[in-house]
């Protein structure tokens, strides 16, 4: 093995390890309470994972949280970015999830039409 090969292997596996780092740049939190799951949050979550994998995003962590008490807006997804206000999305379908990844996570423009709350 050459020195360059070592670097390549390192980079390839780093993404897999990010989850265990103390801090990551972006965090996508999918509400997985009972009503969230009933409204299709599992599908939403899978779509996020799928899209992130397709685009090979390295600094995004997808995790779940409980109910927020906003059942009519489920599935609810919060995007937390270090040093910025958190953005809460409602009624996140698979289609919207793909848009959030493309527009918010990749390009940094939140999908304003679907925002239900912005938390400082």
């Amino acid at each position, binding site marked *: *093995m*050459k*020195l360059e*090969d*070592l670097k390549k*292997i*390192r980079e*390839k*596996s*780093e*993404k*897999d*390890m990010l*989850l*265990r*780092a*103390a*801090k*990551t740049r972006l*965090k996508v*939190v*999918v509400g*997985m*309470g009972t009503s969230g*799951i009933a409204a299709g949050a599992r599908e939403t*979550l*899978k779509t996020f*994972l799928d899209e*992130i*994998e397709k685009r090979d995003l390295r600094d995004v*962590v*997808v*995790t*779940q*949280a*409980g109910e927020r008490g906003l059942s009519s807006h489920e599935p609810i997804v919060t995007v937390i970015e270090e040093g910025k206000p958190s953005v809460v999305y409602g009624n996140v379908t698979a289609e919207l999830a793909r848009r959030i990844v493309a527009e918010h996570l990749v390009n940094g423009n939140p999908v304003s039409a679907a925002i239900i709350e912005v938390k400082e």
Partner: protein
Amino acid sequence: MSVFRTHVLLPVDEGTAQAGVFEIKRRLEKELDSRKLLGEVKVLESGSVGIVGKGVILAVYPDRVYYFNVRQEDVPRIVDEHLLKGRIAAGLDHAPIAAMEAEKSKVGLTREQRRVVLDKAWTVDPENIEETLAAGGYAGLEKLFAEKTAPEALIEEIKRSGLRGRGGAGFPTGMKWEFTRKAAGDEKFIICNADEGEPGTFKDRLILEGDPHRLIEAMTIAGYAIGAGRGYVYIRGEYQLSIERLRKAIAQARSYGLLGKNILESGFSFELEIKKGAGAYVCGEETALIESLEGKRGNPRIKPPYPVTHGLWQKPTAVNNVETLANVPAIVVRGADWFRGIGTDKCPGTKVFTILGHVVYPGLVETDMGTSLREIIFGYGGGIQGGKKFKAALLGGAAGVFLPEKLLDVRMDYESLKENKAVLGSGAVLVMDETTSIIDMLFSIAKFFAHESCGQCVPCRVGTRQILDIIYRIRRGRGREGDLESMLALAETMFRSSLCPLGQSLVMPVKSALENFKEEFALACGQAVKS
């Protein structure tokens, strides 16, 4: 490679294996599978987290939560509540995994620790070299060869770092390497002493189980420094999991070209072999270890000559402890100045301590050199079990010293302990509460030494037996006039005339017990207390 949203780490060591970690792992995979979560949640094994007596432990990332004492019936709840819905399964024993900003005031082993040698031990799958690489494994080797550092410059850097042997003696590592490098001879060896036999010590096992690649990297670096093409890991035979993981790691390193011929196209070749020890305490002594490695009875050699000039097969050999070597890659990557910034002036770096006995949280902790004994026992260890009072701590295993309460604030580094007539030894901290009999303790230590003495030299063979007889008498309430004096005289004679540290070190527990707990012995011997 698919993206996982959650990693569940199951620390595997002898304790958790006993508690059924593999059964829990199978159950977890079954439950995840039945909920179709296997593609999202990754289950993997890691090294021990250094917490003992807590049954099966589960670590969930990125949520950074530990679950303790996990039973079969808890698994569906953890899956449903935590892994599916993302909330902590209520009613189960859990704790947050300390991040860098964790509160310092917290008590227990889950609080923040500065980790150098154990930085990957419980966040990385030790059987997966790619995870190790991603977490910075082999970065020292990479830097060394990318910058084409000369062996002499490497030795200079290690010398400047102030790294000292973590096996107990505290000898400067850079100097040992320099002596070996400068010794005459074409063939040289590097040996890792992983025959961790000091009672109460298990730090090397946790390093080996949690991060075996670190040792491989460190030994390759050491081999490069001293000019050795071959290294041996002399490992305690009982350490089955360590041996198995190290074997796998060696095979992986070979197939990735990080071990063997022409490593990373540097022109340097290095081979590594594992040798299992058969359980003799004396084989932790470097010359006895070398004899055993050569296939002979593990009797210590007469020194000098030292192994740095006449070691394995009478060739120049450096023998280093696991923890010592484990520091080396970090020093190479981050530099001597960084290392000097940790710990104390004369003893830089961290130290791994194993805390056991009557403490609330027995286990292992890596902390800065020079941390006070009080901090280790009451901060990390959580204080004394059952609200009892502290009586004594035995530092450094059987070849260690008893410290009384008045020395609780002593700083744990080679120099400060030496000033207080104590030793750091292997880093074992055996804590005893007020109900413990120091006489019983000394009796079991004397029994251990009499059993483990190899019998080669008279002072040790006869001396250990004589001391055992005396302490046996005292323990039975039949102590005689002059017993304490003759016990001390025997131990001091052994110190002066024994061939190796086994015979030389019984004086430490004997003298410290007699000095610090004089009244207890005097009472047992029926003497009036001499103040």
